[in-house]
């Protein structure tokens, strides 16, 4: 390992600019002659638009143009798309309604885009938006997930009962048979609460059109600029792919919400040509609450069957997934193929059957949010496993251990084949770090102070690096899920890596450079990572689902291998040896069995000056590219243990201890990995204790600002005890599994299992706010009258 190679806790290179305020985000880009867009949004959750009178707005000071859905339609601009086709049980394709970038005829959620004003200043655009007269016929709204299919209101004409799909996975007959012979069946009803992503940087877009070259440029807050370009060109039709440059510069967090292609960037690119001016839009926080795609929002009933030996023999799950008012870019995949395949957890469950009803409601679109489907699955499995252990009177840790998968590869009844893992090793280590054996003493001590102490486990598994392309294609994905890389070696031996991944907080400029440093034996200071610009990087699939390590870095590794192979050819000429005798080690090309060698940089120079070989024998230069398509998903897994103390007088839950033992495979930078674990747990704790997006019956978002939507703060969290176990991933050349979402996946059931343990009953939903916990604690204190 070099000092900056794989496994070194190198400080993040990019932090210098981030912490000194030198980052360049979309809103920092101001183009000459730039005008400002402001979107008039629907104040109603559901209404027919009878008319839109833009006349009064057009004459307001500074107004350049006002556009509505009719203008987009007139220019044949297509609607926004959902890129994953789901088929219902009966084989029929999902029933998706149209999703125009600016509403046509109807608005379907509060925040839906009605019109856009382009003006000289933002204030003028806002003033003019207030002058637009829209006549609405307000309709009743459907907002409740569980009631959506029964509502008298229909959100889209094409979707009867507001149902987009009735999907299923697994084997129904085998599962029913398992339940028929079960000794015990545990049932649970769960709500996975709706969340607002809230990255620190709100979404933004600047569209620009060059009349001289017919080129369009879009600066956008995207996790995947190439996918954005593809969708904007091939599907929405704003500009031809080769004429559209998409730049996603520094991006301040995404958590999934910046994967999707939204109305605003579509309109900015299109309008730039219409008004012959660059057009900028920056979301304010209020708009972000209303119109960023939300996360989660499941209502689930699940049952677990066990036999007389306490072995899990079957799992049955029915979930209603709220997709919101329109299908966002990947929304259909999240509660289906990113969810049900994880329902086996870490357990050997021979029969699983899962049904998912995807429904429309008059709420903001719901799509992938940190973990995307896996947190929802893990919540079901880990709550149910915990409850089963309790009902069987078994220790929850030992019940888990008894049911762990121990042989690999292991094919689950829900598509996945787990490649490797050692779940018991993580459990043992976690029990040790959490000082589990002394928990009863700590519980007693709390009781003496009138407090309720509880401990909760989450033995999670997840699937990262969604792949391979052939497999996801067969499941309905509209894209392939590989990654690309290009390694450009300069004559001085410094290296530029172009990657199709996109960093928006993950630290790629450091970790990717560490890989190069490790393989080529050069310092990370000699390496720069280029991403986020479709004019520089040829193509790529972006960053989400913890894919950038396992898939993105594997592509780089493949390209580096090609660079080394080419370097050997150059070295053979320069060192006058046969290619087969050239070895590359510790940053030097040498001739085996001799002391003749040259540094990587010297060979790079030789490759470019090309004095020592004929261009007919060997092409000059040193630059190689690779596309890498993995052979499987990766399966990070681990055990988190949460210990809480509840004040029954106020309902306040304090997290006293947090143990996280994760198996992420090979770790490139332990410091960055630990940071990802911390952030993930914070988000998971946020979901479990604090965060919840709530709409009232009329469809108004009542948690529409930080005044009411509670984000986790440092004070809400303990100091985390983080441990690691390592089983290298066999499905990619680097052995990486991925770590970006684990915390958010593991945490919610750990918290709720701890709270229910403290309360002594199961009756608490997320977010377990002080009010909810206080009420539940009252119930715990009451004598068991009914039972």
């Amino acid at each position: 390992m070099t000092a900056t190679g794989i496994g070194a806790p190198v400080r993040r290179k990019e932090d210098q600019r981030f912490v000194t305020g030198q980052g360049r985000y979309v809103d920092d880009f101001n183009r000459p002659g730039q005008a400002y867009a402001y979107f008039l949004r629907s104040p109603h959750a559901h209404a027919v638009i009878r008319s839109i009178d833009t006349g009064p707005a057009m004459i307001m000071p500074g107004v350049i143009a006002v556009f509505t859905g009719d203008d987009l339609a007139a220019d044949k601009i297509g609607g926004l798309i959902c890129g994953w086709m789901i088929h219902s049980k009966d084989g029929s394709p999902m029933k998706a309604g149209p999703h125009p970038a600016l509403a046509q005829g109807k608005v379907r959620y509060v925040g839906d885009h009605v019109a856009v004003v382009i003006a000289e200043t933002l204030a003028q655009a806002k003033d003019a938006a207030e002058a637009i007269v829209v006549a609405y016929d307000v309709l009743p709204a459907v907002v409740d997930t569980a009631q959506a299919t029964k509502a008298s209101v229909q959100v889209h004409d094409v979707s009867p009962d507001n149902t987009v799909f009735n999907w299923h996975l697994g084997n129904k007959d085998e599962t029913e048979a398992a339940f028929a012979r079960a000794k015990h069946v545990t049932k649970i009803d769960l709500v996975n609460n709706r969340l607002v992503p809230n990255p620190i940087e709100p979404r933004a877009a600047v569209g620009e059109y060059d009349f001289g070259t017919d080129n369009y440029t879009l600066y956008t807050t995207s996790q995947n600029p190439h996918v954005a370009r593809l969708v904007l060109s091939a599907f929405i039709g704003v500009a031809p792919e080769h004429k559209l440059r998409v730049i996603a510069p520094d991006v301040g967090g995404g958590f999934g919400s910046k994967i999707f292609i939204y109305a605003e960037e579509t309109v900015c690119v299109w309008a730039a040509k219409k008004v012959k001016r660059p057009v900028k839009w920056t979301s304010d926080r209020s708009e972000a609450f209303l119109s960023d795609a939300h996360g989660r929002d499941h209502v689930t009933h699940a049952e677990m069957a066990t036999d007389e030996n306490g072995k899990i023999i079957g799992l049955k799950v029915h979930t209603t997934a709220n997709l919101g008012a329109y299908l966002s870019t990947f929304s259909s995949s999240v509660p289906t193929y990113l969810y049900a395949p994880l329902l086996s957890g870490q357990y050997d469950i021979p029969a699983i059957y899962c049904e998912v009803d995807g429904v429309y409601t008059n709420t903001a679109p719901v799509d992938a949010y940190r973990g995307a489907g896996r947190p929802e699955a893990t919540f079901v499995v880990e709550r149910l496993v915990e409850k089963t252990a309790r009902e069987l009177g078994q220790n929850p840790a030992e019940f888990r251990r008894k049911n762990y998968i121990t042989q690999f590869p292991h094919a689950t009844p829900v598509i996945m084949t787990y490649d490797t893992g050692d779940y018991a090793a993580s459990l043992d280590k976690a029990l040790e770090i959490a000082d589990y054996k002394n928990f009863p003493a700590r519980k007693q001590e709390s009781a003496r102070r009138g407090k309720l102490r509880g401990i909760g486990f989450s033995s999670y598994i997840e699937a990262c690096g969604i792949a391979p392309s052939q497999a996801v294609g067969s499941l309905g994905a509209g894209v392939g899920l590989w990654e690309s890389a290009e390694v450009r070696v300069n004559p001085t031996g410094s290296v530029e890596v172009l990657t199709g991944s996109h960093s928006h907080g993950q630290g790629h400029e450091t970790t990717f450079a560490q890989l190069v440093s490790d393989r080529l034996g050069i310092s990370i200071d000699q390496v720069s990572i280029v991403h986020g610009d479709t004019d520089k990087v040829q193509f790529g699939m972006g960053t989400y689902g913890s894919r950038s390590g396992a898939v993105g870095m594997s592509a780089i590794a493949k390209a580096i291998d090609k660079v080394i192979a080419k370097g050997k050819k150059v070295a053979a000429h320069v060192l006058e040896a046969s290619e087969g005798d050239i070895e590359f080690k510790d940053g030097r090309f040498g001739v085996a069995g001799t002391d003749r060698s040259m540094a990587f940089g010297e060979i790079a120079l030789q490759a470019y000056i090309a004095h020592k070989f004929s261009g007919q024998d060997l092409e000059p230069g040193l630059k190689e590219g690779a596309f890498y398509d993995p052979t499987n998903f990766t399966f990070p897994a681990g055990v988190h243990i949460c210990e809480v103390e509840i004040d029954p007088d106020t309902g306040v839950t304090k997290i006293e201890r947090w143990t996280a033992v994760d198996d992420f495979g090979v770790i490139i930078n332990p410091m960055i990995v630990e940071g990802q674990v911390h952030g993930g747990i914070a988000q998971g704790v946020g979901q479990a204790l604090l965060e919840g997006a709530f709409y009232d019956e009329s469809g108004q978002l009542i948690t529409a600002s930080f005044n009411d939507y509670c984000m986790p703060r440092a004070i809400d969290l303990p100091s985390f005890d983080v441990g690691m176990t390592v089983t290298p991933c066999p499905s990619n050349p680097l052995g990486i599994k991925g770590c970006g979402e684990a915390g958010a996946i593991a945490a919610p059931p750990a918290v709720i299992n701890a709270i229910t343990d403290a309360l002594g009953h199961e009756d608490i939903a997320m977010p377990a706010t002080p009010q909810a916990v206080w009420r539940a604690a009252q119930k715990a204190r009451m004598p068991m009258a009914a039972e």
Partner: protein
Amino acid sequence: MYAFEYHRPTSVKEAAGLAGQAEDIKFLAGGHTLLPTMKLRLAGPANVIDLGQIAELRGIERAGDMITIGAMMKHAEVANSAEVKQAIPALAEMAELIGDPHVRNRGTIGGSIANNDPSADYPAACLALNATIITNQRKIAADDFFQGIFTTALEEGEIITQVSFPIPSQAAYTKFRNPASRYALVGVFVAKQADGVRVAVTGAGSNGVFRVKEMEQALSGNFAAEALDGVTVAESEMNSDIHADAAYRAHLVGVMARRAVQAAGARG
């Protein structure tokens, strides 16, 4: 934000004069309530009169058994004031519980009181400590000043200049924060003076800050947490929202009151 005319007077007299002449005015103190409402276009005053340059509105003074605080004193200044900490530690602690460091270093006592947000902390302190709100026109007893949610005795253009607090023999403030906003979901200020105990509750009441006479009577007889056993506030008078319904708020008033009495007692 809508466009507005900005004024920066250097004396209370000048400020009052401007307020008298101009139409549709708002005074600007720390701006932590006014500016967000303007940014969200919920308020759009034609004239904003910044009180930030007026020296008379600053300062903390102890005279006899009174502490007097200038209207433009920031929460952090009150929290860190040696005089306040010594004379009424509960008041300093209350100021320390407001918002976060940014808020405490901008928000002012005058702004907080003038605004009378039903979840703000200062109104409870003023009411429990029997403070006097001093304006450029008169002196108003706290009991008369707070008149329901976002409503006070202030007349159009009237400026709070100081707030005067009698020093209690014992006092404490306990606050149950709204998890999201960190304003008071329920805040109870308890103060013992020679002439009895006053208990003021913020955050909980459907009509803003209020005193709990039953608790005051019980505590005036016996200044101990047990004295509050069985004393409750009416659910029907409590506020209700997604964070806390009326029953939970009513319950928390009891818990916070007991804890406040304990804290005051512990201070001796």
